[in-house]
């Protein structure tokens, strides 16, 4: 019946943790407030990064590389075949110079008459290559573009490189900054929890001494504090997510135009279930980690 005893002890520890929270509610509230502020900051940041990454991926999905042909190039079919054999190329579309001119007219609309004065079609023919995910990353895309340019009959390639590059660079910088911010926050929040737990340990010194006296082992003494830390972390994460969700809902209409500009679409995504769960787990592990930190030097004897 070992399992039953273990469960009973855990339940006793939970009750003990709850009793601890109830006996010092202010400490709990302050700790949870600090924690959720930190997690809110972290969550906001993650949300931004997540959406920026989403933009890059969306963009990538219709990322095309345009390869312009030399004027004299003739063996279009063979070239198309070669291109489509290259790894990472999903589809190759041939756009003749005539088609290109038609498109240009359509794009220009009412101003299309400026083209009427031309005596010959100035546009080159081209291939439009749809690229697979392995080529959506900036570095490999650049190498690939060079490779295509080196092929006989190809004059030049374009793929919106400036945009992809700078956006990718910003995103990468954000991710690093986020990592730094995350680590920094973890340390601060872990310390906050460690402090609260240490307060709790002090205020329950007598109780611990008596538990030890009647034969409580280390785990029995520590478990309530781990649980208390976990509760703090979990509650704080839940508060942070709710606040973030509320802010998200309130902020969208206000930020609408900026978001369209930044993300290229009006409605950014909120966290999915997995991300929320992850945030809660981060909160809980912070709580337990902080508690462990503060119990590191708890005396085993007496």
């Amino acid at each position, binding site marked *: 019946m070992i399992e*039953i005893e*273990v469960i*009973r002890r855990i339940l006793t520890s939970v009750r003990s943790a709850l009793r601890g929270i109830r*006996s010092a509610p202010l400490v709990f509230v302050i700790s949870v407030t600090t924690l959720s502020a930190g997690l809110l900051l972290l969550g906001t940041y993650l949300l931004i990064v997540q959406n920026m990454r989403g933009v890059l991926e969306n963009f990538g999905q219709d990322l095309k590389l345009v390869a312009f042909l030399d004027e004299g190039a003739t063996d279009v079919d063979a070239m198309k075949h070669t291109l489509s054999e290259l790894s990472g190329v999903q589809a190759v579309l041939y756009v003749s110079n005539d088609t290109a001119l038609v498109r240009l007219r359509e794009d220009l609309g009412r101003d299309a008459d400026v083209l009427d004065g031309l005596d010959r079609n100035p546009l080159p023919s081209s291939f439009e290559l749809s690229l697979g995910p392995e080529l959506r990353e900036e570095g490999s895309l650049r190498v690939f573009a060079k490779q295509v340019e080196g092929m006989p009959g190809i004059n030049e390639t374009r793929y919106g490189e400036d945009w992809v590059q700078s956006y990718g660079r910003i995103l990468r910088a954000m991710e690093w900054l986020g990592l730094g911010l995350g680590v920094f926050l973890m340390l601060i929040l872990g310390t906050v929890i460690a402090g609260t737990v240490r307060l709790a340990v002090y205020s329950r010194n007598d109780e611990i001494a008596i538990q030890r006296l009647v*034969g*409580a082992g280390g785990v029995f003494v520590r478990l309530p504090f781990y649980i208390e830390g976990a509760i703090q972390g979990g509650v704080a994460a839940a508060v942070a997510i709710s606040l973030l969700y509320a802010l998200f809902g309130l902020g969208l209409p206000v930020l609408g135009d900026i978001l369209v500009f930044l993300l290229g679409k009006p409605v950014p995504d909120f966290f999915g279930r997995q991300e929320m769960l992850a945030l809660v787990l981060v909160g809980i592990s912070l709580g337990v980690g902080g508690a462990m930190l503060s119990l590191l030097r708890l005396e085993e004897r007496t």
Partner: protein
Amino acid sequence: MIQMYHAEKRYEGNVYALRDISLTIERGEFVFLTGSSGAGKTTLLRMLFGADKPSTGQIIVAGRNITKMTASSVPELRRQIGVIFQDFKLLPDRSVVDNVAITLEIAGVSRREIRARAWNMLRRLGLGHRLDHRPKALSGGEQQRVAIARALVNDPPLLLADEPTGNLDPDLALDIMDIIADAHARGTTVIVATHDPSLLDRYPHRRLVLDQGRLVTDRAPETYPTAIGRAALPLP
């Protein structure tokens, strides 16, 4: 139940709290530990429940070697030992019954059984009507009875009492001693540290007398009370 072989406890600055103590206490004995203030009574008891280790020598309690014991095996030893103190050491923010329950919670007993057993124990000690009071609402004698209930509720084979009546009026003190004697009668090995002569005179039990950390007298019960004033048994 207890064996000590040349056990010593030395604190920093060459302060000896105990010097070269060798003794045996059998299962079921009732032993008084006495001597003037600072003689080492508390120190000796603390080593018996694993709160301290001897500096040298060996101490065996309930088959466990205290000297070699790791911190992680102390709890197991403690579950075999009930301990009571002069100042009761009750938790002020828990009810009487919850104070007694601590012992059983730690032993992993079910909640229902905890309540029933704590209740029974308290009733036996005449506190059946005080279950849900806070310790502060109780008299000193009642508080000590709660502490005894906490110590005995798990039926430990060994009871250690450090000046259990030190804070109590004489008639309450006798009350407490009766309860301890009752536990002894039920088979518990009992060690009571006291320097209260009225208790020593009243109960004809074996007496260990400490003086500045040394065991100077070990007087067996048979020699009492006729042997007052004379050391009946020479020390080994």
